[in-house]
């Protein structure tokens, strides 16, 4: 069992004499290495030698970095039994770090056709052995981290500072002004939606659409060629370096749950043709079909040790060589699903947690998938953080005015101990978010009640139907000043809640200046003005961006807003006692039944140091339609409160000592030291 060979050696390994190629297939009877010249003309076909444990390898003298290649696998073809070898298909090396050439939807890419697929599918390219990225990493501590989720292409396509060549590319993302803008917001970690090479689904191409989001990988190593004018791997590495130079982390959204090869009639590009039953899960007794836990036609078989190895090596390469600082795992339940359901002790999760090369990587799970038992929020292992959709829903429902949501909002403000504490994790495990790529943008969440996905070409049937959104009287665009004012205030309420909550906040790029997708809550195929950020929003309301910057600044300057441990009541620490108090409008401890009906409360977080000095932060929340008198102190020592933020136009009014008047639908932050 140990003699699986050095996994690093899979893929192409050039040295001074030539290149060693190695690929895994347990079912092949013969594997051909095919070399091509830069024009795509074949130059050499050479059989690889069968080694131990399904590894096929060979050495080509004089072959150097830059060489284009692919594999052809001869072996059984029996679709009913899940055997899909067809030597007419040129296959991508799963370990190739670079792809060249486009993918074209033709008959030839399917394995029930005898046409040669070469020329219709990307070539692999031999790359120099990557040295570990040596530049200094930002290494932002979890407690200071603010994620900024952005789609590289959507973010840069319309950015005014970029020229046409830079739009939609890694190069655009590292443009000085782009980087400076991100930095100016105060966010720390740029979370890029998938950059693994992907293809556009057939049904999109038929409708003249393209995949903007990229959750359709055909390689877990090579970065997306579309994102580069030259070599994607080189340009991506340069981008990472530039973001690091600005002190920003780079987090990659990675989709190790399915591949772009789709269902059983999808294209044969790599895994299917190499070793279908190793790479994909099939239902018991039906090897001719796929388990479809992803809703995307297939499910990667991470139960198989060689597939786990592929995932780990891919992660390690991105972390070590490309310099990536962390990963957000798309539909991560699949990574921990065993035959009898999800297990946080699944070996893949543990391997990822313990691989020394990933020691410093941030690990974030999207803790659900459409498969059985798919919703696993709170159940991932230590070290892992999770997208907290219960946070999103609670915050949106509360501010929308749903009844009886105060208590759950308080638990979310507190860091969702109810979800994460039992698994021995702290507040940082909760990735708080009010919006994400999936769903409405912030602006649309306060402008639309219903989704408007007609442009996706599926008759508005796709996308979420439970958006917990509100249009405040008019669906979509309006010039009604009152409505606009309410919407603006609620955008601030939502972002202020996000940034003042315990946990790790994630901001969706564009929400800081009111980006809209015209009510589209599933813009995965809108590689156009709908999905691209409209930067004119900044000029329309420059104050709003500044208010967001200020909130982020306040979070950074106020450690009490980002505690590293759950505090229930009081917590004694080396440096004093930290308390959290929940007050009602009268300034008394809020009692059980009050949570049900009152929509106003105050959260006071205080730190009494050993020397007797104290600092405190108070978050005042009023979701009533009417203004509310809220008393801050009753028994507590007098604090000198300063109002540092209020989402209502008018600032908070101190009425008498310790009592303030909060406007309806507003949130304020007060500090005292």
């Amino acid at each position, binding site marked *: *069992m*140990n003699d699986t060979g050095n996994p690093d050696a899979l893929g192409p390994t050039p040295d001074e004499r030539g290149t060693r190629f190695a690929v895994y297939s*347990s*079912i*092949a009877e013969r594997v051909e290495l095919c070399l091509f010249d830069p024009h795509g003309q074949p130059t050499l076909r050479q059989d690889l030698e069968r080694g131990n*444990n*399904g590894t096929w390898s060979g050495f080509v003298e004089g072959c150097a970095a830059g060489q284009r290649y692919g594999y052809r696998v001869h*072996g*059984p073809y*029996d679709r009913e*039994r*899940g*055997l899909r070898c067809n030597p007419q298909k040129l296959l991508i090396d799963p370990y190739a770090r670079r792809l060249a050439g486009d993918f074209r939807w033709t008959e030839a890419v399917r394995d029930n056709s005898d046409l040669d697929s070469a020329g219709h599918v990307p070539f692999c390219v031999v790359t120099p052995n990557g040295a570990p990225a040596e530049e200094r990493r930002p290494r932002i501590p979890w407690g200071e981290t603010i994620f900024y989720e952005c789609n590289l292409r959507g973010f840069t396509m319309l950015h005014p500072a970029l020229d046409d060549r830079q739009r939609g590319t890694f190069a655009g993302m590292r443009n000085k002004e782009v980087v400076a803008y991100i930095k100016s917001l105060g966010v720390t970690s740029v979370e890029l939606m998938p950059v693994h090479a992907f293809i556009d689904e057939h049904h999109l191409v038929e409708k003249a659409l393209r995949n903007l989001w990229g959750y359709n990988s055909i390689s877990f190593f090579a970065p997306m060629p579309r994102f580069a004018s030259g070599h994607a791997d080189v340009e991506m590495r340069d981008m990472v370096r530039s973001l690091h130079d600005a002190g920003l982390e780079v987090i990659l959204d990675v989709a190790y749950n399915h591949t772009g090869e789709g269902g059983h009639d999808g294209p044969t590009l790599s895994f299917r043709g190499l*070793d279908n*039953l*190793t790479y994909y899960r*099939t239902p*018991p*007794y039906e*090897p001719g079909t796929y388990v479809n836990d992803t809703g995307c036609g297939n499910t990667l078989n991470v*139960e*198989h*040790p*060689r597939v786990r190895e592929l995932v780990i090596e891919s992660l390690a390469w991105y972390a070590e060589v490309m310099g990536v600082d962390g990963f957000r795992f798309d539909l991560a339940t699949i990574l921990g699903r*065993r*035959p*009898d359901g999800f*297990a*946080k*002790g699944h*070996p893949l*999760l*543990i391997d990822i*947690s*313990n691989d020394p090369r990933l*020691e410093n990587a941030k690990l974030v799970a999207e803790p659900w998938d459409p498969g059985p038992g798919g919703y696993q929020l709170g159940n991932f*292992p*230590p*070290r892992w953080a999770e997208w907290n959709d219960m946070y999103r829903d609670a915050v949106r429902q509360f501010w929308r005015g749903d009844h009886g949501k105060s208590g759950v909002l308080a638990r979310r403000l507190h860091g969702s101990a109810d979800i994460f504490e039992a*698994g*021995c994790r702290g507040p940082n495990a909760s990735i708080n978010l009010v919006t994400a790529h999936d769903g409405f943008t912030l602006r649309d969440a306060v402008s639309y009640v219903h989704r408007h996905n007609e442009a996706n070409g599926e008759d508005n049937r796709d996308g979420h139907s439970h958006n917990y959104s509100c249009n405040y009287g008019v669906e979509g665009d309006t010039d009604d000043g009152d409505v606009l004012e309410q919407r603006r205030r609620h955008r601030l309420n939502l972002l202020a809640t996000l940034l003042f909550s315990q946990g790790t906040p994630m901001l969706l790029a564009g929400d800081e200046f009111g980006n809209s997708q015209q009510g589209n809550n599933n813009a995965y195929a809108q590689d156009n003005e709908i999905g691209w950020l409209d930067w004119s929003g900044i000029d329309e309301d420059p104050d709003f961006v500044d208010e967001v910057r200020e909130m982020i600044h306040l979070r950074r300057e106020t450690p009490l807003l980002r505690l590293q441990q759950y505090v229930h009541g009081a917590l004694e620490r080396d440096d004093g006692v930290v308390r959290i108090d929940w007050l009602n409008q009268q300034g008394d401890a809020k009692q059980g039944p009050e949570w049900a009906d009152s929509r106003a409360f105050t959260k006071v977080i205080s730190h009494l140091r050993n020397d007797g000095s104290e600092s405190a932060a108070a978050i005042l929340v009023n979701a009533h339609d009417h203004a509310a008198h809220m008393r801050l102190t009753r028994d507590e020592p007098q604090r000198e409160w300063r109002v540092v933020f209020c989402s209502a136009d008018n600032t908070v009014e101190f009425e008498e000592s310790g009592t303030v008047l909060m406007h309806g639908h507003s949130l304020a932050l007060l500090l005292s030291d």
Partner: protein
Amino acid sequence: MSAKPENSTGDRELLQTSELPMTADAILHDFTHYFGRMLGRRTIQVDSPFLYQAVVYAARDRLMERWNKTRNLTEKHDTRRVAYLSLEFLMGRLLRNALLNLGIEDETTQALDRIGLDLEDVCERERDTGLGNGGLGRLAACFLDSCATLRLPVIGYGIRYQYGMFHQRIENGYQVEEADSWLREGFPWEIERIEFAQTVRFGGRSDVQVDAHGKTRHVWVDTHDVMAIPYDVPVPGFENDIVNTLRLWSAAARDEFDLEEFNAGSYVDSVASKNAAENITMVLYPNAETENGQELRLRQQYFLASASLQDTIRNWCRRKGGDFVGFEEKNCFQLNDTHPAVAVAELMRLLTDEHGLDWDDAWDITRKTMAYTNHTLLPEALEMWPVSMFRRLLPRLLDIIYEINARFIAEIGQRWPGDNDRIRRMSLIQEGPEPMIRMAYLAIVGSFSINGVAALHSRLLREGLFRDFAELWPERFNNKTNGVTQRRWLAACNPGLSQLISEKIGDHWKVELDELQGMAKFADDAEFQARWRAVKAANKKRLADAIEKRTGLAISTDMMFDVQVKRIHEYKRQLLNMLHAIHLYDRIRRGDGDGLVPRLILIGGKAAPGYVMAKAIIKCINNVARVINADPAMEGKLRLVFYPDYNVSAMEKICPAADLSEQISTAGKEASGTGNMKFMMNGAITIGTLDGANVEIREAVGEENFFLFGNTVEDIEILRGNYNPQAIIDEDADFRRVMELLQSGHFNHFEPGIFDAIIQSIREPADLWMTAADFRSFIDAQEAAGMAYKDEAHWTRMSILNTAHSGRFSTDRTMRDYNDEIWHLDPIPDA
């Protein structure tokens, strides 16, 4: 995990300067001391258990010195050792064997004689240590005896059931079970080793946590913990000063009871949890077939596996610290049948979760230390446990089994790409509405050696039950034909024959059974034959007395003793034997019995309490026996006796007295059998099918000295599907008459219908055991045996040759095979 060896400094051995003398004087002195001072008894009553106990203590003292010395030697030489994991050890009585092996049988006899006691009576006072059902458990006991004799460092690990194999009482022909409270008068052999107690966990859930080194680790939390307390029993080698250990685990509540619960006023609950813990080792499961799905059985299996592995690892860490390099060179685990198979997963858990090894290293160690012996050919006896039960009881083990399976399936995929049927067949998890874990497969996947217990059995395993695995790893499959220890099964149980043999060829056969070959040349020696017959007659007398004592029936020793004693099971076909008895009865009644040899048909054995058919067979035999034995026409011609409460000590009386040994199972069903070997060794001639070790017995003794009958495995394979028992009955007048007698209610006058199921089973075309198919050839073979018995000289010759050729069925040979081909142990040096 403590990296520091716990014994690095400070331990001092309490040296005993002089060895205890082995003289009758010294033994009597010690006996008196124990009887009077320690046990505090004054008057000598022959049936007092304390006489026996005092003798044991005197003997145990002498074992103790050798025991400690053996431990010191193995430690000093850091010998590789084998842990033999078995859910059953059918030890029988220990005293006679201990005295024999210590070489103080005569001295003890003399010592007791001086105070007017007979050693035989004292030995009879010992209760059987009945921690097993049958062959498998008895084999384990024989193995330990041979290993100690061969100086092999092997430790037996088992369970100290509070209630062993039930006692059988026959009431109105029916089996009635009675609890075997063998510990009630104490078990003077054992030494409680509380200092080596282990904690075994159940329930809870599998979780992951970050350890002190920042590594994410699996943890098993919220468990209900049970203490495993070891009790050591000495296993002396034959006159070689070696004493090995049988370590039996007893379960105890982790804390006497939950004080918190107690304080909360819930005394009942707290005591209940204590009882639940102790229930684990309360009772031996009475057979293999009905235990599937019984949670307590899984608890027992895991309890044994976990405690024993932890004990081995504790011992390793004490001497070597936490470094497991070289562990596989010093340790080997032999799994006695599938019962302890969970040890594969448990070793993985201990090495990875508790001792921080990574998966590959741990798996490497596991696959180099585990070896698996399979004892069955019945697919239904291969254990499976519901996944849901594992998840509830052993959640962390389930994780590990899934992981082993994922890697294993990848390995199959590599070897047979796209062969999904094969993957489904070989997967450790059987799919279905209630997914099951195939424990035998777990044992195979985790072991470097897989063996069957007779040549035929091993071949059938490779070609049938485990065929897929044998194709994957042919090099792992091997055969180790079972055996029996001649020290108990000839020397001790048959002193007359033993003495006669030693007179002729010396007594080295006690350690080299092949030397019995030397007897062959006396096979035709008339004077020797006469002495041989005299010994047999004396043994038959002893058995006849025992039968009379138990059943009130007087038996003439002139009769041929035709014996079948073993567990009652359809495949062993006690039914066929009974049909023969009815046939003889019928012949004598119709006046066709003149040429027949007078015959005692003796049947004994226990039926699993839940095995309805087997219990019906017992009832049927008893009813037939009642009719036969009450019929004046049968007087002096035919006797049928069911011997109640058959156990090890009963066999010690039975096998020396048998003339004919019935080994008549359906071919392909008996893995080996060991009773057949005991009979052969004591000079009984076998009537048997080509099944299990019969094949090798016949090979050894020559076909002319064996009464063969019945269909072969291949015949039965062909017959299946075309089997028509009714036609067989119709065509055979004898058979027809037997069936008519049965159906007419002749044997159940006032109990109508009670044998309908038995009658139906004989007529059933789907009858797995094909009783009818072998009826005619069995009758014919019996006829031939009867004829042969009448020729005294010829029979005696056959009898001598059987004993002479039984050499290869010594467990000494079996153990040498295990050692040469699987274990590779060095014998414990002298100093």
